[in-house]
């Protein structure tokens, strides 16, 4: 693999995002709304209105937590005495996870749909294919260009989320209550692996279709919903131990490797030229 070329391609693609305000601003605003605004609103809502909630509304979720006293939840749950404390702890640690899957998947989908189809639309794919860069390095550069921003955006959003949620909940807890240790393998393994899955599928689609619009439509209407559905279920394992979350992450990573091998087998310079260069 030509590492210098991989980084050059990734850097160039990332520069095309950071150099265009209309592209990067929505990429930051939406994650901030979903990953910081929404959790903060939830915590503040429960903090100032949780105690007055009708028990019937919260009964089901509280009973569910009582029965699922495993892992960290099992240790912390009995120490929580107030309703608002319980609601904040549960919602922060168990309801937010799907949001942190949506964020990298959205970011990754936009960038990766543009990867090859965008080059074609700008008339630069031909020059790129004339360069002495093997297809593996070209593909890796494109994947990296989507992977790095997706993971960085989700990690930064997560840190801001943790900071704001803990600050908002501090008067009730007087300690860091979010995230649980289970979130570490989720953020550092599961989410990058799921993002990579979306990127691999989208970059492959982008290499096969003619335009960014076609790539984005296919990626957004077929790949993204399936991944969100699967990933949404996967976050359910957060109630179990960190070990289970790690295993889930490793399984997704293994699927990534298999998919990567398949993609590389079906990607060649001739085919890219034939399908995309006019």
């Amino acid at each position, binding site marked *: 693999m030509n590492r210098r070329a991989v980084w050059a391609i990734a850097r160039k693609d990332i520069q095309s995002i950071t150099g265009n305000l209309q592209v990067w601003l929505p990429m930051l605003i939406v994650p901030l709304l979903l990953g910081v605004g929404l959790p903060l609103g939830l915590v503040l809502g429960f903090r100032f209105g949780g105690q007055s909630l009708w028990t019937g509304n919260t009964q089901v979720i509280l009973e569910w937590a009582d029965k699922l006293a495993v892992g960290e939840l099992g240790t912390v749950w009995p120490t929580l005495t107030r309703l608002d404390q319980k609601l904040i702890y549960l919602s922060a640690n168990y309801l937010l996870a799907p949001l942190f899957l949506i964020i990298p998947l959205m970011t990754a989908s936009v960038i990766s749909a543009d990867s090859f189809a965008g080059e074609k639309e700008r008339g630069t794919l031909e020059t790129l294919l004339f*360069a002495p860069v093997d297809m593996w390095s070209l593909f890796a550069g494109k994947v990296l260009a989507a992977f790095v921003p997706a993971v960085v955006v989700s990690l930064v959003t997560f840190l801001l989320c943790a900071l704001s949620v803990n600050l908002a909940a501090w008067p009730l807890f007087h300690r860091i209550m979010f995230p649980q240790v289970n979130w570490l393998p989720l953020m550092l393994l599961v989410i990058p692996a799921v993002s990579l899955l979306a990127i691999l599928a989208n970059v492959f689609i982008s290499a096969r279709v003619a335009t960014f619009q076609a790539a984005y439509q296919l990626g957004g209407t077929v790949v993204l919903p399936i991944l969100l559905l699967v990933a949404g279920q996967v976050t359910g394992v957060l109630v179990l131990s960190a070990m289970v979350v790690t295993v889930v992450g490793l399984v997704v990573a293994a699927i990534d490797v298999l998919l990567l091998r398949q993609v590389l087998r079906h990607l060649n310079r001739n085919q890219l030229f034939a399908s995309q260069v006019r």
Partner: protein
Amino acid sequence: MHVKRKPFIEVNHVSKKFSERPVLRDLSFSIDRGEIVGLIGPNGSGKTTTVRLLNGVISPDAGDISVGGYDPRIDGEAVRRMSGVLTESAGLYPHLTGRQNLRFFADLYGVDEPDRADALLAEFGLAEVADRKVGTYSTGMKKRLGIAKALLHRPAVLFLDEPTNGLDPEGIRMVLDYIRQLNERDGTTVLICSHLLQQLQRVCHRYLFLHGGKVVEQGSLAELEARHFPGVTLEVETDLVLSDGQYHGIPARQVGPGRIAFTLPDRSHIPRLLRRLTQEAAVYRAVPVECDLETLYFRIKEGTAADE
């Protein structure tokens, strides 16, 4: 014993179809190391496809290709490492500056000379706009940057698709002079696809005429002229009055006031004609009319159409 050197580029009986539409049929030609060759042909004659095949970015349906001893189908990377390509659209990134574009391609081509990009920017008159985004460049500036990009890694062979399209007269001269210098200094082999025949004539050693996906004629200007215009035309400014379209048996015609064109079998007849003319009339000027590439192009095209 004289051993004939193997050509640098060899194309033998190559054919290529796109969706059952034949683009190249039985294409064969060769180019020696250090030659500047013009690839001439109407739109759709297969010029761009030929460049793509030579670089291994597409594969032929039949036939063999060799560039610098490598088969582009098998050793595409090796061929692409030694080739510099300027595509018709220049293929630059509009959101990057001129300097960033060159640095990006320097990374792709593994160029390790830190000053190479700046030297080329200066050489092609782009130093002052090096930090401006390429999206704001004029067509001519993009074209010059595209050529600089193709030269970054000091390629052994250059493939230039319409290198002077969109350039102003200064730009055209700069680019053509540079190609000639590069060829003389480094022995770079150059294949130029162009419609601008007058410009090709200023740099090319030899020409390949492509029509219907195959080479229908090739050679240097002198060779082509000898084949297609065997006679010599001498244009003379004189007060001679022609009576019946000939002068002492030499075909002649009035081409303007006081200007007569004589058609001779070859140049050896020129001195005798001039001796006789100066004895019988006043002669102010006599110039052999050189056949230009454009005239040849149309003559070859007519010949090809007649053959079909």
